[in-house]
């Protein structure tokens, strides 16, 4: 039970990061993506900061044989750069540019946003379900 309290707290920590950095505000993200207009570089600092901490921390963590409460590290296998990766990421970026939302901030914003957040989330879930179902139907393993 305390494990699930911990995963909840880890989610809270992540959410606080999103709130403090204002990544939960699509306007802020869209201004980062608006290179030719009202450019706000904040997002790149958020990413650099998160990346820096995670990069250093991962190097230390992976010295351990296994995580504290699991049998192994669950890391994606394979390094193949294929059409699905490129195409999928490109589509994601288009949706991101249309809305200023990616999955994390959208979920975090449920309780403090307006009805557009709800429309986004429902659409996102539909998109996820369809893509995963199609992926399975094509006989390939669905993404993790």
């Amino acid at each position, binding site marked *: 039970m305390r494990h*699930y309290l*911990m*995963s909840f707290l880890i*989610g*809270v920590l*992540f*959410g*606080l*990061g*999103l709130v*403090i*950095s*204002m*990544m939960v*505000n699509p*306007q802020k993200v869209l201004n980062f*993506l*608006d290179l030719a*207009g009202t450019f*706000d570089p904040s*997002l790149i*600092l*958020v990413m650099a900061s*998160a990346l*820096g901490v995670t*990069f250093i*921390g*991962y190097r230390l963590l992976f010295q351990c044989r296994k*995580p504290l409460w*699991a049998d192994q590290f669950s*890391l994606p296998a394979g*390094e193949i750069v294929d059409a699905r990766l*490129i195409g*999928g*990421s*490109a*589509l994601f970026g*288009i*949706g991101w*540019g*249309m*809305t200023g*939302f*990616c*999955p*994390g901030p*959208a979920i975090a914003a449920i*309780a*403090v946003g*307006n009805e557009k957040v709800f*429309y*986004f989330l429902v*659409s*996102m879930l539909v*998109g*996820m379900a*369809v893509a*995963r179902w199609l*992926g399975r139907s094509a006989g390939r393993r669905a*993404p993790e």
Partner: protein
Amino acid sequence: MTEFTPIEALVGGMLIGLSALAAMGLFGRIAGISGILGGLIAPGIGDRLWRFSFLLGLVAAPLGYWAISGEKPSVVMPSPTGLVIIGGLLVGAGTALGSGCTSGHGVCGMARLSRRSLVATLCFMGTGFLTVFILRHGLGVW
């Protein structure tokens, strides 16, 4: 209009990084939101309780912040509803196909020096910039 907020960006980013480290060090998991959510809705994939409690934490955070600071986090969406829906579909489908999002690929994947994640990040950043340019400066949507 939003201002450049370097301190908040650095602090917020650090918290995201710490969350990712906790997820890996304790549970051995990538803190990739699209993957965590996707696994929750997909049949046959387990650890629903871990996924659900993490996402619940995400939802609770802005409420907690609001309660403690008295300041409600801003969520401003200039895009018209139609675009929000289409965009949502693309984000959902795209992250599922591409196996990750800004946290999964952009933070966790690149932190592992994953070539897949680097390519994915460059792709979504690229189309992200392009899309905003076209919508804002080409078509004048907002």
